[in-house]
């Protein structure tokens, strides 16, 4: 099996978008380009309002990823868990596709007899450990998120701790929305060191609009830019162009 790159967008938000394109559509766009979108909804105290909840789930669904709504306190555990689960899910999709090719029929791991699943799982595990991973983290910094930002930062450090324990390489990039001038602002370009964030994060300002859709669109094109650079130097090796999830 070829070694490839997994691409994920991790959206952290606490409410509804109110500006620009439909974020669900933008997530579907990401999925079409082999990028999985995971969403974490951060709760204040009680429950999330119906609309926000629907949006969070809708984005993840359209983006082929996982969504989870949690209290700020549980953010660290959730961020790493969601990222890992989404990786496994995507890799399983890839392995299932290869299985179909080998076996020539419409068979996924779940349909194999229990005795045969073990080996497939080992391949998925192995891939999860060694695959290259690119995560673009998209943080909602609109008004209500302000108090939660220190926790978000902590959760991101925790995420890098988990991902850096893998054998495969990682690249991280961080965007916040709304940005100071534009809808979205890049605060960290592709780097293996998410810890580099510490110097930029405190400078964030929180504004009124929540342009989740435009933010997602720009995130997707940030992957795109990277990819065209890569193909220039002949290293485009994603095997997750179309996602079957």
């Amino acid at each position, binding site marked *: 099996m070829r070694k490839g790159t997994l691409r994920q967008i991790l959206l952290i938000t606490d409410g509804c978008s109110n500006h620009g394109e439909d974020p669900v559509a933008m997530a579907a766009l990401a999925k079409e380009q082999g990028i999985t979108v995971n969403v974490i909804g951060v709760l204040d105290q009680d429950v999330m309002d119906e609309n926000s909840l629907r949006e969070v789930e809708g984005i993840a669904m359209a983006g082929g990823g996982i969504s989870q709504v949690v209290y700020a306190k*549980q953010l660290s555990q959730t961020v790493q868990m969601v990222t890992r*689960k989404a990786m496994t899910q995507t890799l*399983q999709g890839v392995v299932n596709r290869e299985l179909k090719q080998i076996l020539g029929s419409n068979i996924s791991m779940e349909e194999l007899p229990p005795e045969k699943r073990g080996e497939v799982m*080992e391949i998925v595990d192995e891939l999860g450990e060694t695959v290259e991973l690119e995560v673009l983290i998209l943080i909602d910094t609109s008004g209500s998120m302000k108090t939660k930002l220190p926790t978000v930062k902590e959760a991101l450090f925790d995420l890098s701790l988990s991902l850096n324990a893998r*054998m495969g390489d990682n690249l991280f990039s961080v965007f916040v929305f709304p940005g100071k001038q534009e809808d979205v602002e890049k605060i960290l370009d592709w780097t293996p060191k998410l810890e580099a964030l510490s110097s930029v994060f405190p400078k964030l300002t929180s504004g009124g609009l929540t342009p989740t859709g435009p933010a997602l669109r720009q995130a997707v094109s940030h992957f795109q830019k990277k990819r065209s650079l890569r193909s220039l130097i002949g290293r485009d090796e994603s095997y997750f162009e179309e996602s079957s999830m």
Partner: protein
Amino acid sequence: MDVMNPILKNRLCKLPAGTVIVGKWHKQAYKIVKPLGNGANGAVYLAESKKGLVAIKVSDSSTTITSEVNVLKRFSKVQGAALGPSLLDMDDWHDQKINRTIPFYAMEYIKGEDFFSFLRKRGKEWLVILVLQLLSALEQLHEEGWVFGDLKPENVLVAGNPPTIRLLDVGGTTLQGRAVKEFTEFYDRGYWGLGSRKADPAYDLFAVAMIMIHACYPTKFERKENGRKQLFTMIQADATLRKYQHVLMKAIDGKYVRAMDMKRELVAAIHHDVPLARAKQPPSRKQHRKKKRSGVIETAFIVVTLLCMYALYLYGQIL
């Protein structure tokens, strides 16, 4: 906290007693008796089967079931060791009520008590004994190239007589050198800012130290700015922990490469203050002899008692 589908989760966590689970592939039937517990990845039930009482783990994720079964299969190949519950079956159940296929596995039911309730009932002197047992189990597991990962008191049962620890929940069990699959913040050295999440034996040994600390501070506490200092202060402030502070700090700092080393030093620490106390007042010759004699009498007494008990036991057997 989990990433499960809520409807499915609700169903999986609330399977009523009497529900019969039949495997699609192996056709084995299991009748639910009662829930044993549930967590991030599924639910575990006590069930009746042709083979007697078993524990069944159901999950919404075939991935979870398959990975855990993989580990249990490997463990069953380790000679003479009870690293986890033994694996009995793995299958899919079609739940007609929600029209979903639910993957599950059946394993040995371990009738025991969780680590902390055992300590509460039987007394704190058991703590270090159970920890010694735990270290032996970990040594074996590490020898086989694994790290347990999600080591916490909830995953350690005390079963049988004499009380013996059994490890449960292999969801976090990871090959050494890989990223720990599953963990619980409080027992995770990464959370405390005291190391990576790469699976190595020291990862588990850190969790062992945290189990000991938590046993002496039953109320859960959170990490403060300087995790190491916080833990050190707590160890200092507790009489039981202070006795093992050297060992605990070494485990916290990740200085043990093997569980056996930690075990040896823990044993040494247990016996440490005994000779020290004696050395303080060297007894005069006379006293010494007296002590010796009383020692002989003591031994004789113990031997006689044991013989009596043995005789009673034989008598009981014959009856």
